[in-house]
């Protein structure tokens, strides 16, 4: 089992994607199928961008096991008031600044869901959000 951990800074768009990029390199070295790698890193990158766009700071932990890749993406931030609404395509509270970066289309959470096998959101308004994701590696 390989474990990777990263600290993510809220608001720092120039660094957003660094963690996902490192995870991608590791998954490639482990010879995981390209289409699975793409699913995993697209989901992780959207989650990483959500910390940068919506929270104050956060952490990412990725556990790569022979059968699956588990990702825990946790932040200290405003939390999500209505998860059902946040999961809808097109719903976004992103700032104008975030939109200028090419995000804030409200497609992140729905796209994360499409790319993984399991997704749990744990959120407390005023405290933070934690996203638990799992991708199985046995079915290509």
């Amino acid at each position, binding site marked *: 089992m390989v474990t990777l951990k990263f600290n993510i800074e809220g608001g720092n*768009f120039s660094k*957003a994607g660094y963690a*996902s*990029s490192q995870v991608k390199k590791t998954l490639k070295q482990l010879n995981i199928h390209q289409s699975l790698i*793409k699913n995993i890193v697209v989901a992780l990158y959207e989650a990483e961008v959500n910390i940068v766009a919506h929270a104050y700071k956060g952490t990412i932990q990725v556990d790569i096991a022979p059968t699956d890749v588990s990702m825990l993406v946790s932040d200290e931030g405003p939390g999500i008031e209505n998860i059902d609404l946040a999961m809808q395509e097109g719903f976004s509270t992103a700032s104008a600044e975030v939109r200028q970066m*090419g*995000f804030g289309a*409200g497609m992140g959470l729905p796209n994360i869901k*499409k790319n993984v096998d399991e997704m749990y959101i744990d959120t407390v308004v005023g405290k933070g959000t934690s996203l638990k994701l799992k991708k199985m590696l046995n079915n290509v």
Partner: protein
Amino acid sequence: MELSEIIDIVKAKLVAGNANGVVIEKGFSSDLMSDVLTIDTEKILLITGTCNVQAIRTAEMADIQCILLVRGKKANPDMIKIANENKMVILETSLSMFNTVGRLYQVGLKPVY
């Protein structure tokens, strides 16, 4: 279509990577990175006016090797560095998105959908 042909048609400047022998079948144009991340086609040209590190990171995650910046946007050193690390090509054209996409569609670059 050869990437070198694309460079000719939109009078692009190559600022990162190597275009030799690169073949592109399809194009996708968007300034919204989350849209780009929903595409599951490879070997595409990403045509965008979003000129920042996130455009390059998005392409990296989506396995897109070639990015064409439109409307005269210039790639910054961080973008070029990340592109080089990942063996990506960055092109710049002064043409608008509409003009760029129209020209490339006309010569047979295919849409993703």
